[in-house]
């Protein structure tokens, strides 16, 4: 035993950067495993230790493995004191949902609770409704902290035009790495005392690295049917923006989805049929009434979220998650069916954020209360994740990227 120890001591004599204690060298793959346990901010501090630790923690493959083990919730956090009367500052918080630790916070300047976050391919778009703050829309690269202001909105063309609700969101074109922002506004036009409301669609391209917006807003082709403006009715997955139609789904009973290709900037025809129309099954049954339909990007997959309540029992809610398996064959599969009855809140909205490595689904509950919950499909059990209780966040989403390396995405 002594001789074995002696051998190890001898081995550590040369000044290998990974030499450990008196018992030899910690192999790089073990060191990697150790570092994967630490949060992103700690890893960034550890880059000061030596060159090899820095290159290991900056590696895109390491960053990807890290972000799948440490999913981050991102949301807007109201600063405790108003910057000036009636206007509070907001920070962007990146929170580890399990420890509750704020891993990173970025001050974005003035923002209100009308601001919305959208995230795609490692970038964040912070935008406000056109009516309130049209010139402060920006895209953040969380790994570097670089902020790109979106092009200015042209002032109202004439007095008869005004804008209602609007939305901005971000998508990445996988083939070129370009980031594009789509803006949809509700335009009110007064003509001969009659007010007409139309949606107008614009698109802007950020630079190849997503760090400078070189061009202004361009007019985007109009879709055949107007799409929903709300953030729950769209998702961007692998360079395609998917939209629900702006028609009442009840009683239309259509779950058609429009696709906009961010690369070619064209709408795809015909519309992608949702799971019910494409599989020719009925959305409802004797027991369940279809309540609402949302879209989400869950772990890089387009997911249709169907909310139901039991007939005549409005608090007995359930949710089905349909994953798009093959867009060309319009093939969907129902991977999760969640019973919300035990956690239901009368005016709550339940939004799945991410599927964890162990199969559980993280669900953000907002409206009335704000809660983060985990659902385990094997046991149908709900777990409260209490970490966000003291950290009131708005416009919460999962961060599709890594704070360690700006080239990493979870899509």
């Amino acid at each position, binding site marked *: 035993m002594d001789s074995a120890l002696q051998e190890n001591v001898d081995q550590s004599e040369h000044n290998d950067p990974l030499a450990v204690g008196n018992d030899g060298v910690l192999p790089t793959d*073990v060191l990697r495993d150790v570092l994967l346990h630490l949060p992103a*901010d700690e890893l960034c*501090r550890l880059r000061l*230790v030596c060159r090899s630790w820095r290159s290991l923690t900056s590696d895109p493959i390491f960053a990807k493995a890290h972000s799948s*083990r440490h999913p981050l919730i991102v949301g807007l956090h109201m600063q405790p004191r108003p910057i000036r009367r009636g206007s509070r500052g907001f920070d962007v918080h990146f929170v580890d949902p*399990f420890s509750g630790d704020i891993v990173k916070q970025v001050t974005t300047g003035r923002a209100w609770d009308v601001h919305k976050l959208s995230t795609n391919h490692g970038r964040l778009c912070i935008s406000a409704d056109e009516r309130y703050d049209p010139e402060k829309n920006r895209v953040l690269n969380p790994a570097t902290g670089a902020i790109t202001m979106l092009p200015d909105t042209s002032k109202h063309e004439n007095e008869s035009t005004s804008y209602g609700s609007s939305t901005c969101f971000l998508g990445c074109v996988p083939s070129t790495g370009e980031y594009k922002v789509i803006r949809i506004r509700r335009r009110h036009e007064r003509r001969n005392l009659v007010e007409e409301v139309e949606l107008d669609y614009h698109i802007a391209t950020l630079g190849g690295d997503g760090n400078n917006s070189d061009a202004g807003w361009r007019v985007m082709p109009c879709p055949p049917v107007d799409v929903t403006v709300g953030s729950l009715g769209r998702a961007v997955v692998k360079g395609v923006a998917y939209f629900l139609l702006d028609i009442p789904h009840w009683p239309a009973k259509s779950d058609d989805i429009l696709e906009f290709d961010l690369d070619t900037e064209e709408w795809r025809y015909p519309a992608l049929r949702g799971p019910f129309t494409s599989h020719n099954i009925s959305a409802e049954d004797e027991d369940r009434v279809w309540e609402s339909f949302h879209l989400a990007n869950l772990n890089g997959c387009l997911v249709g979220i169907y909310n139901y309540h039991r007939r005549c029992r409005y608090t007995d809610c359930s949710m089905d998650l349909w994953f798009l398996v093959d867009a060309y064959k319009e093939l969907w599969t129902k991977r999760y069916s969640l019973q919300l009855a035990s956690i239901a809140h009368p005016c709550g909205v339940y939004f799945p954020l991410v599927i964890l490595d162990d199969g559980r689904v993280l669900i953000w509950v907002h409206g009335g209360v704000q809660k983060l919950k985990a659902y385990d499909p094997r046991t149908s059990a709900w777990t409260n994740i209490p970490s966000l209780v003291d950290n009131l966040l708005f416009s919460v989403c999962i961060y599709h990227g890594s704070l360690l390396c700006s080239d990493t995405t979870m899509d």
Partner: protein
Amino acid sequence: MEVDKGKGEAEETRKVAEADRDTVTLKSSDGKLFEVSKEAAARLSTVLAGMIAGGSIDDNGTDLKQIGSEALENVVDYCNKHANSIPSAALISSSISFNTAPFKEPEEWERKFVDRLSHDALFDLVEAANFLGMERLLDVTCHKISEMMKGKSPDQIREVFNIKNDYTKEELEEIRQELAWAFYDD
């Protein structure tokens, strides 16, 4: 019942082992022999599972030249403890726990198991776990080492992990500025 059984237990275990061979004998780099349940070894170590399946287990002690006797003793100890704690493990995973990150936090006994180890013993064990493909033990030991890194300054880390600073002052300042957000607390 335990009292009655106690005396003959060792003898009985050996007999059963010889007959059904439900244990395997492992030999450390310094020639010490350790016996471990075949079932636990196969379940917890991908390398031992492969050796058992491939028939490359030596009844007189399978040579593990890369692992010292102290580390191997800890490996065997871990396997035995793990085998005994299965019911509680199942209980814990199904109960409601707030602290359940995507990779499972160490359980109480696992935490105690690694906490009692000296610095050197811990690093020997993590390498042994890595060598034997023991995913769970590797996770638990890596977690322990990561805890040792938390909140330490670069100088402290270099001291504990015996690492040479290969940066220039200017480079360190550059990294500090680039990652200013991570150094808020300093």
